[in-house]
Structure formats: C-alpha cells, structure tokens
C-alpha cells in the first residue's frame, strides 16, 4: 500500500479511511440517547423486526443488534434516534445526569 506520508511515495495525495476522522465526536454532545430495554421492541418480542434507530442514525453509530447499542465515542447527540423510535424506547438525557 502506498503511504502518503512516505516522501519516497510517488502518489502525492492519498487519503486513508479512518474511524473518527474528526476525533472523538462524542464530546460534541449535550444530550445522550439512552435506550430503555424494557420498551425496545427488539428485546420485548424476539421475533419483531424494527432497527428504525439504526436506519436513521446519520453517522451509523447505533448497532444493528438486539438490543441496539449506541457508540458513545462518536454519537453527536442529535436526537434523531429518540425522535424516530416508533416505541418511544430512546430518551435523551443530559450529559451531567447519572446514566
């Protein structure tokens, strides 16, 4: 692989895919999404199909698992998941409050 930082490399400008290109974007957050497993349909009924929060997350920070998990390192706290959850299972809590 060509290393763009290697001065001997012939290719001048190659960028490499990196997770967290803008750093830990989780630090931007004021409110954190908290998934209530008692309300999440993926937990309460094992055969249910949902994953709406996973589909709507602009960053792909929610995993496609049962129950879904939020990647707090990079979640920017926009609140789209809480707004779009059809079962009201995601609450936005202030960062300073106890989880």
């Amino acid at each position, binding site marked *: 692989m060509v290393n*763009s*930082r290697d001065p001997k490399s012939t290719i001048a*400008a*190659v*960028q*490499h*895919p*990196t*997770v*967290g*290109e*803008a*750093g*830990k*974007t989780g630090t*931007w*957050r004021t409110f954190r999404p908290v998934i209530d497993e008692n309300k999440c349909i993926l937990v309460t009924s094992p055969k249910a*199909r*949902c*994953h*709406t929060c*996973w*589909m*709507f*997350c*602009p*960053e*792909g*920070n929610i995993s*496609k698992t049962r129950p879904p998990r939020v*990647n707090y*390192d*990079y979640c*920017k*706290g*926009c*609140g*789209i998941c*809480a*707004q*779009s959850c059809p079962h009201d299972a995601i609450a*936005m809590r202030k960062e300073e409050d106890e989880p």
Partner: protein
Amino acid sequence: MITRPDDLPEEELLLSGTRSCAGCSMSLMYRTAIKALGKNTIITVPASCLTVLHGLYHKQSVLVNVIHTTFETTAASASGIVAALEALGLDEKITVVGFAGDGGTSDIGIQGLSGAAERNTNFIYACYDNEMYSNTGTQRSGQTPYMAYTTTTPHGKLEHKKNIPMIMLAHNIPYIATTCASYPLDVFNKFTRAKQFKGTRYIHVLAPCPPGWGYPTHESIEIGKLAVRTGIFPLYEIIDGKMFLSKESEPYLDPRKRLPVADYLKKQGRFKHITQQHIDTYQEYVNGQWDFISKML
C-alpha cells in the same frame, strides 16, 4: 426494492466520527446512498459540505474511492473517470457517481452537468439539496426557496426555486428521480434503480440542514417529511421521459390531502419573518407545481 429498515445492508461504508454537523441529513442520505452503490464505486465531489464530511488530508471517513474536484467540474471530472474506465474495460464493474450540493449543481456546475448529460455519459449525478451554500455559512443559491433567509438575502429571497429535475428532463436522459433524506428506504431504492440504467442518471435529494434552516437537530427527519406532506417537494421518478409519482408523494396529488405550507414554514428559523401574504404566494406556487405534475403523469 426493499420496504423495511432491517432489509438495508448491514455493512457501513461511512465510518463514524465524521466532520458533519449533528443531525445532518446529508450525512444520513450519503450513508444510505453508498450502501446502495456498494464498494465498487468512484465518487467525485466538488467543494461542498460533502468535502467537509470526507475529512482533511491524510484521513477520510468513507470506504469508497473519492476524488475531490473543483466547484464547477463534478460532471466534467466524472466524464474523465468514465472515459478512463472505458479505456481500461472496467466500466461494467465500476459505478461512477458525482455528488454535488445544490449550488454546485444548479449555479456553478450546471454547464458541466449539461454537457455530460448531452453526451449521455455513463454516470450517476446526485445533487443533495440543502437549499443554500451551507458549507460557507448559508448564502443564497439557485435552489433557495421563496422568502428564505440566507446571509445574502437578509429579507428573504424574492425568487422561487429553480426546477433542476425538469432542466435535466430536457436533456432526454434515461433516469431522473427526486427523493428526500427523511425516507432512507426511498433513497436506497432509487440509487439501486439508478445503478441499473446506462447513460446519465440524475437524482435530486432534499437534505434539510439544521444550522442553515434554523431548527433543532432532532427535527431533521420531521422537516423533510413535512416538505413532502405539504407538497413542497414532490417525490417522483422519470424513466425514459415518463413520470411516476413515488408512493410517499402519491396521496398529495389530491390538494385536499396536502398539509398547508405554513406547517412547514413555521417550523424553521429562516422563514421567521414571513407574512400571511408570503404564505399565500408560496401556497399558490406549490399548487401550480402540482398542476404541472398532474399534466405530466
């Protein structure tokens, strides 16, 4: 065609921790679109919010090949990539996509786009429309709607939005579609369909912008849906010159089912200053737009 959220492919080609704002619907649209396009894609991007999302040299936040180009040359650079792929015999395997913002499409890049469409160059041109030059701090573009506040239209823009999909229709290209970031399944289906055509394909995506439009970040999805439900942004496909309304927009052909435009305008800071007279003018414009669409069907 997929109908459920969990039918979307699980593999993420957009990596976490990008530079886009919280609640950016362009980021959501892009994440869904590259899922449909797959890894064998070359994307060319002009100066836009999407350049910011891709990150600073020497890192990038996507797993597909991206070329950053100058503002007016999205379609021109895509034409060059297509010519190179044809020479190498790789044009069947690799999809070329030009992703530009509304300013890069309707104002600055339109000559390149028109030229490429006239030659029927084999690529997809996607315009994500946040209705202003959001990247540089919200200036007026050809896609800014009537009476919207931007830093260069402090009392609201006096003209209506430019209808780019109809300009593209005049180029006789095989596939044109409009979609909205609030409907990821629709975005996915339309990009998947566009991939199956040969020739120039144009997709226009409405992408609400929280800082530019002046609404809280969690309302991104709702605002996009309101744009469709009020009939301001109709979703349709034009295949070989024949128009088909998408199911999200189908009910709103009937004017009684359309929500009043005020429901959409009053939720946004950029329309804070408008009067009832402006709302009536806007409503008339939307009704006229649907009269035009009903004649095209």
